[in-house]
């Protein structure tokens, strides 16, 4: 149970970084919508879990936030990727790609390939 949320949070943080990298400055709801659109139902149940992750990323200096005005003219907090965050994203993306590539190769292996 606990392990599953941990993995989720790790990937969630990476998703947040990637979203901000692509779309620039965005408020929390916007980030949630994008992730939902791209990842399907990963965030449909617990959108709120995004906020502790945002806080952690901000504490680590990967993102910055400031108050701004949302599209329906309400006060909203906008998040933006920092230089540190961009570097972190690159490093972690590379790690993910490697892992994915390795796993992909493993899954592609057929019995006859090993004989």
């Amino acid at each position, binding site marked *: 149970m606990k392990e599953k949320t941990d993995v989720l949070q790790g990937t969630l943080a990476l998703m947040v970084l990637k979203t901000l990298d692509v779309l620039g400055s965005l*408020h*929390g*709801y916007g980030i*949630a919508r994008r992730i939902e659109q791209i990842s399907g139902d990963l965030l*449909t*149940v*617990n*959108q*709120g*879990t995004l*906020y*502790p992750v945002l*806080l*952690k990323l*901000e*504490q*680590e*200096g990967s993102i910055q936030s400031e108050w701004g005005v*949302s599209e*329906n003219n*309400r*006060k*909203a*907090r906008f998040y933006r990727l920092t230089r540190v965050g961009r570097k972190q994203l690159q490093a972690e993306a590379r790690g993910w790609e490697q892992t994915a590539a390795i796993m992909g190769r493993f899954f592609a292996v057929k019995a006859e390939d090993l004989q």
Partner: protein
Amino acid sequence: MRSLRRFFKRLVSWSTKRRDEARLQEEIEEHLALQTGDYIQAGLSPSEAQRQAVLKFGAIEAIREDYRERSGLPFLETLIQDVRYALRRLRNSPAFAVTTTLTLALGIGATTSIFTLVHAVLLKSLVVTKPGDLYRLGKESLCCYHGGYAQDKGFTLVSYDLYKKFRDNTDGFSELAAFQASSPDFGVRRAGSNQSAQSFPGEFVSGNYFLMFGISPSAGRLFTSEDDRPGAPPVAVMSYRLWQQRYGTNPSVVGSVFDIDMKPFLVVGITPPAFFGDRLRDNPPDFFLPLNTEPYLEANPDLNEYDTHWLDLIGRIRPGANPTSIEAQMRLELKQWLRSHWKEMSAAERAKFPAQTLFLTPGGAGITSMREEYEHWLNILIMVSGFVLLIVCANVANLMLVRAMERRRQTALSMALGAQARRVVRQALTQSLLLSLFGGLAGLVIAFVGTSLILYFAFPSTTGAPAIPIDASPSMPVLLFAFGISVITGLVFGIAPAWLATRVDPIEALRGAGRSTVRTGSWTRKTLVICQTALSLVLLSAAGLLTAALAHLETQDFGFEQARRTVAMMSPQLAGYQPPQLSPLYRRIRDAVSGIPGVSAVALCKYSPLEGNNWGSDVWLEGHPPPGPNEDNSASRDRVTAGYFEVIGNSLLKGRGITERDTDAAPHVAVINEAFARKFFHGADPIGKHFGRDGMGSHQYEIVGVARDARYFASDLGKSVTPMFFLPEEQLDLNPKTAQPTIDSSHFLNDIVIVTRQGASLSSARLSEALASVDPNLPLILVHTMQEQVAFQFNQQTLIARLTSFFGVLSLVLASVGLYGVTAYNAGRRVNEIGVRIALGANRSQVVALILKGSFGLILLGLFIGLPLTFAVGHFLGHQLYGLSPYNVPVAGFAVVVLGSSAFLAALIPAFRASSISPLEALRAE
């Protein structure tokens, strides 16, 4: 790096917590509003849109909790919460808080107080620049003179000539300093003052002594090598201690002249406050004098005697120099020096030449004579105080357990409501640590008082100032120690209750308290009681052994009379007397003191019995070859006036004592003791035989009497008495080469032994008057009774025995209280059962027996475990028992009986209380 950054951000946001929560609130509202808007656009009704938005967001409270945990420092917050909670609980039960704190304070205070001493005596370096760069000559400390060209344990003491050889030829030292191994008393008077001279300890040191230590003066200047050459104007450096205590740090002291043993010296400076010389000792030197003023001051100077070794060496090595290669070089220099004195060496010394060597050892702590002397005592005290601390821990743990038991229901309830086990343990531990820190704080006060008292009793001061430069107030290392020991104590006694707290079954909360059949923790408490009993048995029997050993020491037959004897100490040297004036002076003193009403007899001597000092000589028997190099032919000598043996009450077994007839013109005689006769004559009649001191011929003295063995030094207590010979004061030894009379300082007698008549008393004022009538300049150093002189020798033993007894009684009380607590608690838990039993017809004594049976089992088990331990401790005490067997059955038996009976009493009270319960009440109580 990132986590550090996050920590600081958290620290900041912890302090701005409220703002963070407000921000989250706003963000949530915004999020929900946007989501609701989207849903409405998608065609949902506003209320359904709102509902769906909230559903999709997830559990708001859980997220808020998560957010809060990440934004602040939960560890710090819980800690503060726990501390607040623990304080509140302690405030609610002040009796418990005070008792526990005091118990802990006793344990921690005792341990800290002993540690203060251990730190000062065993661990601390001298307060000088870079003590790690200092190296000293020799592995152990020798006192105070060594003659000849061979030192069996490696050269430790050196002569001035040998010092110069080392100083001038060893490059590895940036400074190599020499200083006197002993600390003589000087008669000192400020020039122009009309007060009589007073005696102060002093020390001859080389000119680079202070330079080598790298210290700077409080006032004036310290020595340079210019001050330490023949013919330099005589100068002195005063200790800060004396300057402060006697002259109130008056700057005019620097530059003024002081008469030291009647010779003028210019005081040029004051040592720094923390400096107490090259070694820790009671009565550290107050006057430092250059080595080259020694011939100016002393009648028989040692400075230019090549083969009189009286100096210790400490050197500061150059940066990067290797002590091992310096040592090798110095060994070479030693051999060269010995070779250059080949002609003066005796055959025996030449035979020992190849084996002569030396050792360099770390010298940052100075000359560690005190460490060698007290190490074993301190180890005993550490052990004893450690045991007390353990008992204290067991006791407090017991109290905590009882409290934890009483709170079981509450703990069970909180756990049923979802409290984490970790949190419950942390709460319990926080309370324990808090208590032990309070205990530690109070313990510091106890430690300060305790250390001051121990120092006061161990090193009685004659001037009112502390006689030993050990500071009782806690220093940084002591504070750290007290803190560390408090935390350890807190963990030790807190861990069991904390652990038990987690073993509470939440279901118990739902059952009624006391209905539970599980007795969690009762074995833990029983184990604690057993341990306490065993430990306190060990302490009690250690106390018993030490006290018995002391009693055995004090009541033994020392071979002389103590009753009606008074010893007065004076010093003709301090008053500037010259050797030819001595015998007439002694006669005048005897006449004057005999004239005091109530005095029946008077005699003078160099050393009186159990004064604690001695002068060893090598003996050469007539008709035997001169003693060989490895032959043990040592004996101690004393010089006495006529009637001495009668005055100290030492009976003569054969022949006669020293009488008025033994003048210089009469044949030179000696009285020996039994040990001397045994060692050198093996049962043959020694009367009429001759002997001499090695190097002075074998026909020096004719033995005219054999005295019963009387004890002169306390250092060999438990062993047989040292061989001794007594010489008449008036007879001067003849130099075998020149046949001229020689006077060594054994003729400067210090002790006046006075016998008073039955019922008469002797005031020191009358004594001073009598001495002043002989010579007003003659300082009376000390007056005490013979009993006091003897007791003084057992000062340390008395102190250790008393301290251990104190700790033993303390542990007894603690163990009894612990047992009382356990018995009372168990009896309390069995109220129902007892009620039923009484209702069914059990009588009082059966109930008492029921309760006692449980408790007594614990005591017996504790005694059973403790008994072998006590014998182990007896073995550890070993030679501190002075011949008393460490496997002392009466002492162990006594300890068992005392412990058993007080434990029995402690258990009896709650047992009686339990038996007086009325059955109706017991069944109703719930």
